């Protein structure tokens, strides 16, 4: 019995009983749909987190020192309380480190707060993100300016009240109006606009353009954030290979600065954009591990349904089996025929599942900020699972069919 022959027979059976065939493989369809949709979205998320999110939020090849880790993870209260007792990082720390770093790169520090930003025309932005930073901050984050210029080292040094506005802030305060040289009020202090940033886009659907950057030592120092306290000290190196070197040098210098003896745990956190992704990696790994169980349940249910329908099919076609046996079909021929029918049925369900899964992923992408990325492996996996479920579910019915006594089978009605 040729396999192609059996597949053709199976497809004819499916065509003859479309609705029944569909309900038979519903379990497979649901399982594979879910598998494809979740893998597609997860892969998309993964690519997004690594390629877009990390770069936008933390900068590439950048080592950042903070009082506590950005990613708090699943830590308990005791740990969080311990973190709260840690000393805050000072601008002086950043300057001290900057004088001693050997690795080539750019050092910056910044802090931030949330405040309204308004202009003379009476327009204002509530809850803008106010960042006070060193002049080098622009280079760390790779910020491009749409117009104007960033503030200079001298302006930063003297705390001149100048500000670079984020895209959203400009849109709200100066719609269609030239903003350079205008005055805005940040937390009550007057600042002069010297530059406008390029649009940064969104992260998880949230705009990241609702912010302004001003010199750290300008009047916001002490009101938007604690006086001379740096929330982040960032160090950007020219290439990825230098990141581990920079990390250990930063950590070493900070430990000296905090006079920590060897063996004592560091009272600060050193992170890279990669390590910030650790939390995401944990989530995605958990989902990837949990996924087979979720998919497995629907596939097992699907297999049971297919097995039952195949058993019905075998008993409906007992006479046909008898005829085939009388014409010389061996047990193996009958076994293979029914196994292939079952696999074809379920494989077709897998294909439908792949289609629906991709559709679902596209839908998720359309209505939510979650990105989707189709992975070819998941499609192969989906089809393979469909066929596999069919084979597994077909074994018992096919075996029943194969061992039918031809005389009894021929006599059945």
């Amino acid at each position, binding site marked *: *019995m*040729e396999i192609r*022959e059996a597949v053709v027979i199976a497809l*004819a059976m499916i065509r*003859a009983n479309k609705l029944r065939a569909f309900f038979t493989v519903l379990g497979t369809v649901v399982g594979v749909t879910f598998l494809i949709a979740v893998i597609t979205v997860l892969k998309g998320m993964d690519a997004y987190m690594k390629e877009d999110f990390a770069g936008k939020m933390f900068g590439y090849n950048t080592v950042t020192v903070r009082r506590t880790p950005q990613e708090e993870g699943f830590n308990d209260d005791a740990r969080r309380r311990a973190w709260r007792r840690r000393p805050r990082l000072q601008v002086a720390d950043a300057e001290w480190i900057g004088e001693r770093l050997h690795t080539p790169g750019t050092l910056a520090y910044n802090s931030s707060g949330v405040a309204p930003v308004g202009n003379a025309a009476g327009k204002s932005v509530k809850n803008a993100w106010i960042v006070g930073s060193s002049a080098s901050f622009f280079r760390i984050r790779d910020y491009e300016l749409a117009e104007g210029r960033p503030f200079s080292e001298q302006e930063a040094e003297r705390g001149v009240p100048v500000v670079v506005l984020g895209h959203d802030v400009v849109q709200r305060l100066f719609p269609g109006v030239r903003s350079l040289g205008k005055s805005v009020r940040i937390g009550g202090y007057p600042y002069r606009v010297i530059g406008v940033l390029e649009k940064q886009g969104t992260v998880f659907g949230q705009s990241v353009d609702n912010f302004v950057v001003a010199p750290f030592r300008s009047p916001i120092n002490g009101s938007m954030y604690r006086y001379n306290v740096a929330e982040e000290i960032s160090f950007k190196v020219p290439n990825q290979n230098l990141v581990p070197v920079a990390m250990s040098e930063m950590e070493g210098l900070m430990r000296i600065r905090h006079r920590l003896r060897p063996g004592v745990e560091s009272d600060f956190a050193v992170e890279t954009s990669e390590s910030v992704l650790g939390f995401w990696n944990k989530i995605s790994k958990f989902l990837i591990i949990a996924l087979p169980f979720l998919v497995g349940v629907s596939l097992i249910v699907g297999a049971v349904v297919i097995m039952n329908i195949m058993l019905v099919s075998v008993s409906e076609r007992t*006479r*046909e089996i*008898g*005829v*085939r*046996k*009388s*014409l*010389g*079909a*061996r*047990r*193996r*021929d009958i076994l293979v025929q029914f196994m292939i029918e079952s696999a074809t049925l379920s494989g077709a369900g897998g294909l439908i599942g792949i289609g629906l899964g991709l559709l679902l992923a596209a839908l998720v992408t359309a209505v939510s900020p979650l990105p989707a990325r189709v992975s070819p492996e998941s499609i192969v996996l989906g089809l393979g699972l469909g066929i596999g479920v069919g084979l597994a579910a077909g074994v018992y019915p096919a075996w029943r069919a194969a061992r039918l006594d*031809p*005389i009894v089978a*021929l006599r059945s009605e």
Partner: protein
Amino acid sequence: MSTAAQAPVIQVRGLEKHYDVGAETVRALRGVDLVIGRNEYVAIMGPSGSGKSTFMNLIGCLDTPTAGEYVLNGHSVAALDDDHLARVRNREIGFVFQTFNLLPRSTALENVELPLVYGGLGKKERRQRATEALKAVDLGDRLDHRPNQLSGGQRQRVAIARALVTHPSIILADEPTGNLDSKTSEEIMGLFARLHDEGQTIIMVTHEPDIAAHAERVVMLRDGVIESDRRQVPVPAGTEWGGARAGGAPALSEV
């Protein structure tokens, strides 16, 4: 028709078949001896319960005997396992059933091809041989018809084509006219007579004397043993089948 002294097609000696029904053992066959030569046309008759169905199942290699010997075409087949029996059925036996037993979703051609599929033939050769077999039963113009598009007589002729397509040693027909009206029955009998003339060995199980009258030898079974075994002058089939074919005219009264 005078065949040279060849080994008989079927040699059966001391054939017994017992069935366990609950605590009792039913002896369906109690020692049957029979020799059927090449190109014989044998009718096996007997009342129900005589063991003729059991005998047919054994002859057809659908079952194995409890005791006794069965040599088919020179090979002992009494003790073969399932898969070897399947092989023998495929090569040596062409079944014709009372209810035709065609696959309803397949065309006439596909039905006739089926034994060749199990025989492992390639697609092209299968198609060619099945077409020939259907032409031989005058259904060359019905290749792509499904059973429900054919009359009873046509269906039985498809079944006969399916039996012939492997060039089997014997055609084993079980009440081949049981589901046909008398006119169609005669037509089928005419076809059998022609096949017999062409050298085919035919064994036909029937309980109808009219039908058995077409055979040249009638074996009577009763209570699991052969009651009588006589040769007779076959009655020619009642239609113009044989004559028309002999005259080369393809005329066939439609059913």
